[in-house]
């Protein structure tokens, strides 16, 4: 296709996924698929109240079910488990450590049996008496919810610059609007599961994880054992989106059960229990004040945010850290609050800070453009900046307006009649909207081992995680390119804590971090090979300067016409396998980072901090159609243009961005976990009532990869794309709905009832 030609600039080849065959044949074994001999099955029992204490657990009937082997509850733990540490773990709540109930659906028991049917039957027979139950706080506006200043409890500084109050008071055009986003759950298709196998005092856990090294250390601490005797295996992960980033308390509980009964135990968590025993995206509220000159220059940006969290853990996303640096705001004042309530602890979910905060800001931007009578793209162009306004740090690269131009062109933005409600197609009112996407280019310390074998095959080992992003594929491509061998001659091993550690697969850091380590290891392998080739007596490159050699397509090339087959070179080196291990520490990070990585921490350099700002950008456009009578909303077209530095693989990059845009569609129109205000319990905890986009909700989705060179962002020049795609779509849809209907919906999701009079 001719329109793809310019995209080849600074892009790798669109190689098919290296694990595609395994995934289409059913041979890919996700953790709950791994066959284990003599396996016992377990089922969680969870609380039916959100606040109170367990007085008694009646497990007599459960024990009477044939096949039941063990029932664990707070009465039987006896100090055998250490408490989870919030951070690497999803919560500090040790659900079986005490009789206290902190939230709805808290684990109160684990029932183990020979067969899943027996475990399920027995689990349903467990009855719990509660005492001290009080009306729980469900979140915002609930009695007993405690609002605290997030800066004070988290030790952070709210981004601010200039005199906001003065600038806002003086601005000729102002808007002052409030927005909200709901509770959302990741709902990866794969159920959460843990399979624990003990052998000679060593523990192997098969569990979908985005952080095997972190978990190994956290699990060892909870089980009070040496991390060297714990292994986490997670070769395939059936979707994650952040839900499998922090370890949950279940892992240690299942491992303890397996140790006690002397037999492997598997626990596959029911979908409804996943809503309360793991994390979620907390609901947020926002107040935004924007002031602008008549020529469209923003002079004042004020953003107050409120985020719900649990009682004991201050989980915070504080998206103002990114939004405050998005445009050339004249003055900025921000403040973030946490609202502690009787809920399970939230956690990160795809674009954790950006999804709610950018929805609010990019909606406000549209409102301001409307107030100015200005095209929303032009309004953003006027406020585009190469230096963030808070500290004046420069972006290493920023192609936001190029993204707008390309997406607008492909979308046909020039066909838009700016007048609200002016575009119609029969019974459908048509609206066009757009919004900015941004995501920081984070990077972490990472390690990798690369082996080049005498047969010309290579092995890449790194304990990163294949959550569907294509990390195995891009790793194979990078190694193939560096070593001059075909992609299918590279085996990539990931998802095992016995491999060299890599960061948590979160914050869109993996490609940058892991590929930087692989590149370093490959360069060492090449250097060793070249040294051997020039040292070999009588070889074609004998006595050459190693730095003059290169490898391409299975051949070693020198400065002259002589070439040497890679296979011959490997045969002559007499080195056997060329194996190199590399540690990559990002610029500006402490050398101590590698030690911390081995200890299970994830030292990360955030793209929005430091002397230069590293960030990927995109522009997202949507067409919505709102039915004149029913107010049904359809989204027939979405176009996104994204600039993310070097694109390692345009095929996997497109898929990720496309999936992200559809996530944004779900966020705008479908997704919300409903909470009963009186009981603080989730109501729609399954895939029937928690709406996610289905195939029929999605029509045309176009992804444009805007060429961008950025050699300053990191050694491989890549910016993460995994979370960028869903950042702008919710606001773009809300803005398009405004254009169609004249109704500014500031609370997500936008449903039919939001648009009825």
């Amino acid at each position: 296709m001719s329109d793809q030609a310019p995209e080849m600039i600074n892009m790798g080849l669109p190689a098919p996924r290296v694990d595609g065959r395994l995934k289409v044949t059913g041979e890919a074994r996700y953790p709950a698929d791994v066959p284990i001999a003599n396996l016992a099955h377990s089922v969680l029992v969870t609380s039916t109240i959100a606040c109170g204490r367990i007085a008694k657990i009646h497990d007599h009937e459960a024990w009477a079910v044939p096949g039941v082997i063990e029932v664990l509850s707070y009465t039987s733990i006896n100090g055998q488990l250490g408490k989870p540490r919030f951070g690497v773990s999803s919560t500090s709540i040790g659900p079986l450590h005490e009789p206290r109930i902190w939230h709805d659906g808290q684990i109160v028991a684990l029932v183990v049996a020979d067969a899943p049917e027996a475990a399920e039957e027995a689990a349903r027979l467990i009855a719990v008496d509660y005492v001290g139950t009080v009306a729980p706080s469900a979140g915002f506006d609930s009695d007993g919810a405690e609002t605290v200043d997030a800066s004070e409890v988290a030790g952070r500084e709210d981004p601010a610059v200039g005199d906001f109050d003065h600038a806002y008071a003086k601005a000729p055009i102002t808007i002052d609007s409030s927005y909200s986003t709901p509770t959302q759950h990741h709902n990866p298709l794969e159920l959460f599961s843990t399979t624990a196998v003990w052998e000679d005092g060593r523990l192997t856990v098969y569990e979908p994880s985005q952080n095997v090294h972190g978990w190994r250390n956290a699990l060892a601490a909870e089980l009070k054992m040496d991390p060297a005797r714990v292994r986490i295996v997670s070769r395939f992960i059936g979707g994650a989106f952040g839900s499998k980033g922090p370890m949950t308390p279940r892992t240690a509980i299942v491992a303890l059960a397996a140790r006690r009964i002397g037999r492997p135990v598997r626990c596959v968590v029911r979908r409804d229990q996943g809503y309360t025993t793991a994390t979620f995206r907390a609901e947020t509220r926002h107040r935004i004040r924007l002031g602008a000159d008549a020529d469209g220059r923003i002079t004042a940006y004020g953003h107050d945010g409120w985020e719900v969290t649990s009682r004991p853990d201050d989980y915070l996303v504080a998206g103002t850290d990114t939004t405050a640096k998005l445009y050339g705001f004249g003055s900025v004042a921000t403040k973030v609050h946490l609202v502690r309530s009787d809920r399970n602890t939230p956690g990160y979910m795809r674009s954790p800070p950006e999804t709610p905060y950018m929805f609010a800001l990019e909606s406000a931007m549209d409102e301001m453009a409307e107030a100015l009578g200005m095209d929303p793209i032009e309004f953003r162009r006027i406020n585009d900046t190469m230096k963030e306004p808070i500290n004046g740090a420069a972006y290493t690269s920023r192609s936001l307006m190029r993204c707008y131009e390309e997406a607008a062109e492909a979308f046909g933005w020039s066909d838009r009649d700016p007048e609200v409600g002016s575009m119609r197609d029969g019974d459908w009112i048509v609206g066009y909207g757009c919004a900015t996407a941004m995501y920081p280019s984070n990077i972490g310390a990472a390690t990798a081992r690369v082996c080049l074998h005498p047969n010309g095959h290579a092995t890449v080992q790194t304990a990163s995680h294949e959550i569907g992003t294509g990390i195995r594929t891009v790793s194979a491509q990078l190694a193939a390119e560096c070593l001059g061998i075909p992609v299918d001659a590279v085996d990539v091993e990931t998802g095992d804590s016995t491999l060299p550690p890599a960061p948590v697969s979160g914050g869109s850091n993996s490609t940058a971090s892991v590929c930087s380590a692989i590149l370093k290891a490959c360069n060492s392998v090449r250097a060793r090979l070249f040294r051997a080739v020039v040292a070999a007596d009588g070889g074609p490159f004998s006595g050459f300067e190693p730095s003059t050699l290169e490898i391409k397509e299975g051949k070693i090339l020198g400065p002259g016409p002589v070439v040497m087959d890679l296979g011959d070179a490997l045969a002559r080196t007499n080195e056997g396998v060329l194996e190199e291990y590399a540690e990559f520490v990002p610029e500006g990070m402490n050398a101590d980072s590698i030690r911390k990585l081995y200890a299970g921490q994830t030292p990360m350099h955030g793209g929005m901090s430091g002397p230069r700002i590293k960030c990927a950008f995109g522009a997202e456009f949507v067409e919505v159609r709102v039915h004149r009578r029913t107010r049904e909303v359809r989204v027939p077209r979405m176009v996104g243009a994204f600039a993310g530095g070097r694109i390692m693989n345009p095929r996997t990059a497109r898929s990720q961005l496309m999936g992200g845009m559809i996530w944004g569609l779900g966020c705008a129109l479908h997704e919300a976990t409903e909470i009963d205000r009186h009981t603080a319990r989730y109501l729609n905890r399954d895939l029937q009532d928690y709406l996610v986009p289905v195939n029929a909700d999605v029509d045309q989705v176009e992804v444009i990869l805007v060429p961008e060179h950025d050699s300053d962002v990191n050694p491989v020049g890549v910016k993460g794309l995994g979370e960028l795609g869903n950042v702008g779509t919710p606001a773009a849809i809300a803005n398009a709905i405004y254009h169609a209907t004249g109704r500014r919906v500031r609370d997500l999701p936008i449903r039919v009832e939001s648009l009825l009079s």
Partner: protein
Amino acid sequence: MPETPLRSRTEIALHVNGQIRRLSIDPRTTLLDALRDHLGLTGAKKGCDHGQCGACTLMVDGRRILSCLTLGVLVDGASIVTIEGLSSRDGGLHPVQQAFIDCDAFQCGYCTPGQILSAIACIQEGHAGSDAAIREYMSGNLCRCAAYPNIVAAVRSARDRSEGDHAPISV
């Protein structure tokens, strides 16, 4: 392995991917669990256990069904095709499997076995005549990675190829 002490067991025979497999199962065991836990066929996935996600889709006697909502004892004697039974003996991929790779119709791959079996049925049923029809008849299979446009492209491409080659899509 010790005999599992359950309340009662029922003997059934399933024709799975062309082979007769005899099983002794708890009457509460779903077809999905029978395949996964008793026959080691873990290609079919459990995403909800409530018939809401489609990840467990299988072909039973030529029709796509949700194996998590089907008790094993109710399909005694039935002919079942799972994702493991689609490739030819020499390892060649089924045209729909190949189309899913070619169109990058998956990311994490967890829903993929169910999507592929639904896709085969969608074409066989004559519900792949247009992109709109494909979207509608593939909507029982959720994909949280949201590979939907690529799934539609894969179904369309497998359909076109089978029509061009006069080789009807079947399991």
